[in-house]
């Protein structure tokens, strides 16, 4: 993983029957970045993560992790992953399972360090079957750290954690990332992406809709909405107006999502002077996120 990107996805596509779960996703992540893969449930985040890790074969496109295939990266201990609902052995203690996974790696972190980083010191002798949801997540985190990976992949890591657990978890991730490692985490919590990522990759219906620094994605997604009654206008006409990104037209009332609402209003009044009852509102990031990722079509796979 010297010099090149931590990982690179090009034109990644995965279909499950008639459903295209991931649709031509291309992302390149440099070493040391903390990237949030953000999107609602069913956006294709988990499938993307599975392909990145070599657990699922893409139908099209390529995956390179540390310059090699995902399997090579796993074999070399370059990548560690924490999967949603990743299996643990219920009859085995936390200490035993950590030692087991450590033993599979060529250049692992010492088991004691793994335990300490994941904050599991007081649970070493507890069997995995007796852990709470948040504790299980921390064990999965420990297993992801075992190989001392350069790239850490986390799929919905804080799903079962309470507020304190989340804070402690992200503190541990930051500490780990501070040593120049790369972190990719999939989440559907916007706040988590905002608070902890340097960069946000936004997915929706299997496709990438925005990619950039948090501030940039915020600017891209948080435009304004122009609402007006425009009798006689068609959707196509409205969509062609400058500065307009999407159009919704119901009973002569238009809702235009705008990247540039100034251009849009000038264009609208020039083309449709009969437009009335006009209002322009700013969207917060949260609303913009919801607007961008709202599930309009049924049946997108997770």
């Amino acid at each position, binding site marked *: 993983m010297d010099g090149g990107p931590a990982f690179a996805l090009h034109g990644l596509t995965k279909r499950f029957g008639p459903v295209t779960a991931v649709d031509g996703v291309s992302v390149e992540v440099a070493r040391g970045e903390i990237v949030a893969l953000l999107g609602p449930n069913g956006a294709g985040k988990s499938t993307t993560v599975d392909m990145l*890790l*070599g*657990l699922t074969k893409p139908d099209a496109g390529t995956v390179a992790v540390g310059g090699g295939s995902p399997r090579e990266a*796993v*074999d*070399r*201990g370059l*990548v*560690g*992953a924490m*999967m949603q*609902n*990743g*299996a*643990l*052995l*219920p*009859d*085995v203690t936390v200490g*035993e399972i950590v*030692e*087991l*996974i450590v*033993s*599979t*790696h*060529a250049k692992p972190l010492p088991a004691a360090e793994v335990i300490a980083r994941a904050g599991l010191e007081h649970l070493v002798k507890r069997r995995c079957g007796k852990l709470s949801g948040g504790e299980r997540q921390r064990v999965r985190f420990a*297993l*992801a750290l*075992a*190989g001392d990976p350069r790239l850490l992949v986390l799929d919905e890591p804080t799903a079962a954690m309470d507020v304190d657990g989340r804070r402690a978890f992200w503190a541990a991730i930051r500490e780990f990332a501070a040593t120049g490692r790369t972190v990719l985490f999939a989440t559907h919590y916007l706040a988590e992406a905002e608070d902890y990522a340097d960069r946000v990759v936004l997915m929706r219906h299997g496709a990438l809709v925005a990619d950039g620094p948090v501030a940039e994605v915020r600017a891209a997604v948080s435009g304004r909405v122009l609402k007006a009654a425009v009798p006689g206008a068609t959707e196509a006409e409205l969509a062609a107006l400058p500065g307009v990104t999407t159009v919704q037209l119901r009973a002569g009332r238009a809702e235009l999502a705008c990247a540039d609402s100034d251009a849009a209003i000038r264009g609208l009044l020039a083309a449709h002077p009969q437009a009335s009852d006009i209002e322009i509102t700013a969207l917060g990031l949260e609303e913009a996120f919801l607007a961008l990722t709202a599930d309009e079509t049924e049946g997108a796979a997770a």
Partner: protein
Amino acid sequence: MNTTYLSLEIKRIVRSPQFTIFTIGMPVAMFLLFGTIFGKFVTPSGLPADVQTMINLAAYGASGGALFTGTRVAQERTDGWQRQLRLTPMRGPGYLVVKVISAMAVALPVLAVVFLAGLATGVEMTAAQWGLVLVSLWLGVLPFAVLGLAIGLFGKGDTVGAVTGALMMPLGMLGGLWIPLYVLPDWMATLAHFFPTYWLGRLGLEPLAHQGGLGLAALVLAGWLVVPALVVVRRFRLDTARL
């Protein structure tokens, strides 16, 4: 091979209630029951009945324990543990080898406990015979470990447990390990040849009663090893490709 994984697997098996109660407890209890019933009665093979009963039930316990490997594998498949292992450098063959060797390793204490019960109740063999019977039975357990694995790669945890439990009945009964075949009708003695447990029993008796069947028993058991092994390899490849 990953010895940390192997020793953990052995620990897991030994500390499960299933192992103490069924794998060790059952054959010992049955030996104490049948051994007392048949006593020193001399069987048609010229051996005292208690020797033969002990060997048969040691074979039953050890083969049953090995077969139950499949239940654990099936449960781990259901839970997605193999998927977790795919995020480590450990490969499929490494996992399968640990499963087979741990099954073999825990067959030893099963044999030892039944033999101790035999010693305690007055079963007599020369030191060489004790050793040879132990080694023959132990090696003969290998096909059962692989067979268990093959079954385990096809079902869910609960189902495989039930199937394996249900299989142990005919394997013990019809294979002639529970009740000696010479007290059963001829057709049952013929039927027994179709069960691997029968050949394991023969293998165990070979150091005592030279019926000239060592080569044949070993050959048949080798067949019972190779076929499930091919199934395991094929199935595991498909399984891994689909995950």
